[in-house]
């Protein structure tokens, strides 16, 4: 094959990890929400898109990118809180199908509202000045902004890990995901925890959208494909498992990049083939709990 070298494979691997880090950002939110609330959030892609648009709007009124990094997840997360409180909370205890369908419908609404407000055509989002250009990573040049995205993802992961492992709220979330009733009888208002977790997941999705905006621009439909990919990641990693979401996200990224190297047109099917194979061997995914939801 023309131009195949060790450097290229290294660069390719790196590109895969960078790509995977965007998947991870979406998948941890999905997984967190599923693990805690057993809600399969079909609107997650819409929240991702919303993050990109909120960022676009903030940038257009002169807010700088670094402030957006904080403001966007807060705004999108806040919207997530409102959604949980008004639409999803009435559905707890009614099985997995109803929240799934509701969020499916909700995603239509969000996307259409964005079309009404921002128009149907997309907008470009410039890469922040400080993050333009490419840097040498040893095996070749790689866009600085993508390194930045990887860095932010890593930071979020570390932050989330510290939050879950070291704080009181983290302890509540870890325990609540396994046994909500116990947490309730130990004095925790579990509905508030669910509310916060949903908001947190949506906020991270919104941040993902903001980070993706300079990579691909923004359009109302941008949440669709990434949602499908994030679902694959969540399922392969094991629904509800954060560790699984991280590993599977990176794995899917690498699988895509390696397929891209050898059979690029198969890159998309490779994701689903991977998912089919993993699920047939291990139906609950890497770190999922067997028998869940069955």
């Amino acid at each position: 094959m023309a131009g195949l070298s060790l450097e290229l494979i290294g660069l390719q691997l790196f590109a895969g990890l960078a790509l995977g880090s965007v998947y991870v950002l979406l998948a941890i939110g999905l997984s967190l929400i599923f693990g805690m609330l057993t809600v399969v959030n079909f609107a997650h892609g819409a929240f991702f898109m919303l993050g990109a648009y909120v960022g676009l709007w903030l940038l257009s009124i002169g807010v700088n990118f670094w402030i957006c990094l904080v403001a966007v997840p807060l705004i999108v997360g806040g919207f997530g809180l409102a959604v949980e409180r008004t639409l999803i909370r009435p559905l707890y205890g009614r099985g997995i199908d109803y929240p799934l369908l509701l969020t499916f419908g909700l995603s239509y609404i969000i996307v259409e509202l964005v079309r009404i407000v921002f128009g149907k055509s997309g907008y470009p989002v410039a890469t922040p000045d400080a993050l333009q250009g490419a840097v040498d990573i040893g095996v070749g040049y790689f866009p600085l902004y993508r390194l930045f995205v990887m860095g932010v993802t890593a930071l979020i992961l570390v932050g989330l890990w510290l939050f879950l492992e070291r704080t009181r709220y983290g302890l509540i979330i870890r325990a609540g995901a396994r046994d909500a009733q116990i947490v309730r009888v130990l004095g925790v208002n579990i509905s508030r925890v669910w509310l916060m977790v949903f908001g947190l997941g949506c906020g991270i999705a919104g941040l993902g959208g903001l980070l993706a905006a300079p990579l691909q621009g923004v359009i109302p439909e941008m949440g669709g494909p990434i949602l499908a990919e994030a679902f694959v990641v969540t399922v392969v990693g094991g629904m509800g498992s954060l560790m699984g979401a991280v590993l599977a996200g990176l794995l899917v990224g690498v699988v895509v990049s390696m397929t891209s190297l050898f059979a690029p047109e198969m890159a998309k099917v490779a994701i689903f083939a991977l998912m089919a194979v993993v699920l047939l061997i291990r139906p609950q995914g890497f770190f999922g709990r067997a028998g869940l939801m069955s």
Partner: protein
Amino acid sequence: MLRVEKLNAWYGASHVLQDVSLEVNRGEIVCLIGRNGAGKTTTIKSIMGLMERTSGSVTFEGHELLGRPAHERFAHGLAYVPEERRIVTGLTVRENLRLGLVSSPNRKKEAELIDRTAEIFPRLAERLDQTAITMSGGEQQMLAIARALISDPKLVMLDEPSEGIMPVLVDEMFELFQNLKAGGTTILLVEQNVELALGVADRAYVLDQGSVVHHATGAALLADAEIQERYCSV
């Protein structure tokens, strides 16, 4: 201290508790006995606020609790140890204990309280940093009890704490109950092991088919072979 009046509860359409009334006084050990399905578990779940649909009245130290969510009842000083030792197996022993304090005002003294608990439960002290799943059933049950006690509740409700546990540990557990009582903790106990339970109980209520059918002191019931045979026969 705790007064339950005409408590009714439903699972879906089936009416599983009918006009249950009972009282627990400060410093007492009160026991609920009866066959499987008699409504013992449902009664304490209703008191704790874990049933979807209830009616009647549950007052604790003068506060009406019915209709309040479980976490508020905890804040009033109620603690509940469910059956089947529901500890969180993925967490360590210490984390499980910390979980008992997450919404207690005592959490500022967390380290101190964990040390104190470790003294009371020496079996847990050795394995504070092990994952809870590595412990035996009896040790897990001890942990579940310790977790409920660490926040210094006024009333502890335990659902079949001796189920499936080695006799040695059961003895240890019942000694603990008596010590707790001596220390001023009030206990509401659901137990299959009738003789053992009645041995420590000040008073006991017998439930059958969702209603209270008999009420007497522990000693009196222990002596009443007919009631035992009729409602608790093994």
